[in-house]
């Protein structure tokens, strides 16, 4: 009842800040990884490696040509799908973690206030 967490640097706010920083790092890592995929699929297979890939065939398509007119687009759709799904999971995990931190903190403070009452 007596000790609600103050807005300045109590242990619980630094914990939440640390969780936020971790979330941001994971977000950056995922974004970067997907952008590498974006570059390889579109500008890589579609343009930079188009000539060597054209030596190979996919059904009736030369492979480089297929990437430039079909494959890259399919890859782009999949990349955004992965981003939306993984970020959604990351969001939910982060929300659960923050809720747990807050609950633990509330337990700890109510426990400490209870012992104070006993004494």
């Amino acid at each position, binding site marked *: 009842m007596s000790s609600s967490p103050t807005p300045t640097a109590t242990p619980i706010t630094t914990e939440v800040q640390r969780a936020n920083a971790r979330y941001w790092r994971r977000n950056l890592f995922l974004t970067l990884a997907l952008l590498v995929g974006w570059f390889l699929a579109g*500008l890589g297979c579609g343009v930079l490696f188009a000539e060597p890939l054209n030596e190979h065939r*996919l059904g009736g398509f030369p492979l480089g040509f297929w990437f430039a007119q079909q494959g890259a687009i399919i890859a782009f759709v999949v990349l955004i799908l992965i981003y939306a799904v993984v970020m959604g999971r990351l969001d939910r995990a*982060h929300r659960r973690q923050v809720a747990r931190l807050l609950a633990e903190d509330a337990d700890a403070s109510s426990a400490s206030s209870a012992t104070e009452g006993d004494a």
Partner: protein
Amino acid sequence: MTVQAWTFLFVGLTFSLYLFLAWRARVRDTQGFYVAGRGVPALANGMATAADWMSAASFLSMAGLISFLGYAGGVYLIGWTGGFVLLALLLAPYLRKCGHYTVPDFVGDRYESSAARLTALLCALFVSFCYVAGQMRGVGIVFARFLEVDVDVGVAIGMALVFVYATLGGMKGITWTQVAQYWVLIAAFVIPAVAISWQLTGEPVPQVGMGSELSSGVPVLDKLDQIHRDLGFADYTTAFVGSWDQLNVFCTAAALMVGTAGLPHVIVRFYTVKNVGAARWSGFFALFFIALLYLTAPATAAFARYYVFESLHGKTEAELPSWYRTWEQTGLVVWLDDGDGKLAYHGAAQQEQNEVFRVGALPAVEFAEIRADHATWLESGGERGSDGRAVMTAKNLSGFDADILVLATPEMAQLAAWIIALVAAGGLAAALSTASGLLLVISSSIAHDLYYRMLRPQATEAQRLRVSRTTIGLAVVVAGIFGIYPPGFVSQVVAFAFGLAASSFFPVLVLGIFGKRTSAIPAIAGMLTGITFTASYILGTVYFGWERWCFGIGPQGIGIVGMVLNFAVALVLTPLCPRPSQKARELVAMMREPEGD
């Protein structure tokens, strides 16, 4: 029923549907007017974004361009879809988290500078007006070809329709009509492609059909390469031919991607959803719905290319198909015979044998003279008059106009009348949906950023709504006038729009989100460097005969160099300039935090 009757029916039905939806979605506050009350579901926003993005150019011109360029046509496919990856990963979720109404609004608040806000505002207006002129023209052309009304009357009808639903419903009205327009345009694009694929290869899925065999047993693409070689064109599937060397293909694709991610009328669509998660999902749905058309376009392009050779090359006057006659009247395709009575269509390597041309921007009188001289030349056996083919080749008018392909392909394949009419309704839907999205950007830039944020911050809600409605009404009229009297540079102007968006908006937005330390001075210096370099290079190479001094990169691809310069200037200046204020730093921190429940 004739094609024209079917067209009247489809256009009438779809237009009534758009008006009905607009009436249902009319709004009473600025939040509804600018961002549809932020209540659009991700799936619907994906469809609306797809319709917003796919313009008259995507629908009418792109397959035609691919058909002419072969492999290099992929730059448009990669460029205009790859941009959505950048948009969905780097911009949309963060901008939605900030919760502004417009892009200049974000730039102004993040960099705390009216100069930055104004620069962004002018770029947004310029890019949007460039674009909207082409859309209105597209509306006019479809009306002229299929309903046989004057191009100007067609533009006026389109204007009236957009005027009603944009002033009534603002973003909300535009969103729900765009959802409907998406289905009209995608049906109109995919149904003919399926029918043609089935006819040619026995495969109903055009993307598979393109890689399958013709009834003669030869794969479609091999057959195309063969025809191209025989008639003096560059191979259809070979990479990097002619002026499309590897560097230019790379730069153009990259510039289109980055430009796409920086286009304000696409970005604002992400402001209309409920939360950040919905912004991510609408990025996925948008590209998914766009991909349905973009994966079909190369198949349409390949089939159309095949039909063109099959139905034109080597035919006599009497054997020419009826679609040729229809389009000949428009001057988009003309035939100057060499005297043997058989049409010959050849590429650059056999230029002297080619007999197919287009009138292009030539005045009708001038072409009539060339044609008359050519007839005299033929009759006199070369003694009098002059060879029209040489004249047209010198004027760079060989081959027919790419714009007719999508509209003419259903006729080439002799599909049913209702399919041909459906294509007309689809072209109108594509042009109208993009036009309305652009007009909203123009209106909100003026009414929100200029009037409310800069000139009269004390304006009431009712005043702001009134100004918004008035500016969107005025913008429709201005756009219509551009459509009736098109500035003669529409196609270059589109390259310009992408170049500017790539070299100004994209870096300033990315740095605003990912560069905590970047403040107003580096951002503005970067934008000005990017814009100045890109604009002067495009104007110089297109109008003033400059050499392509920057590694031979063409005007379409130069935006990527402008973007690199913008980033470089901003990043070099960043450590030298004062930090952003506490408030701006808090805004950045807020954008990066995950969203609560």
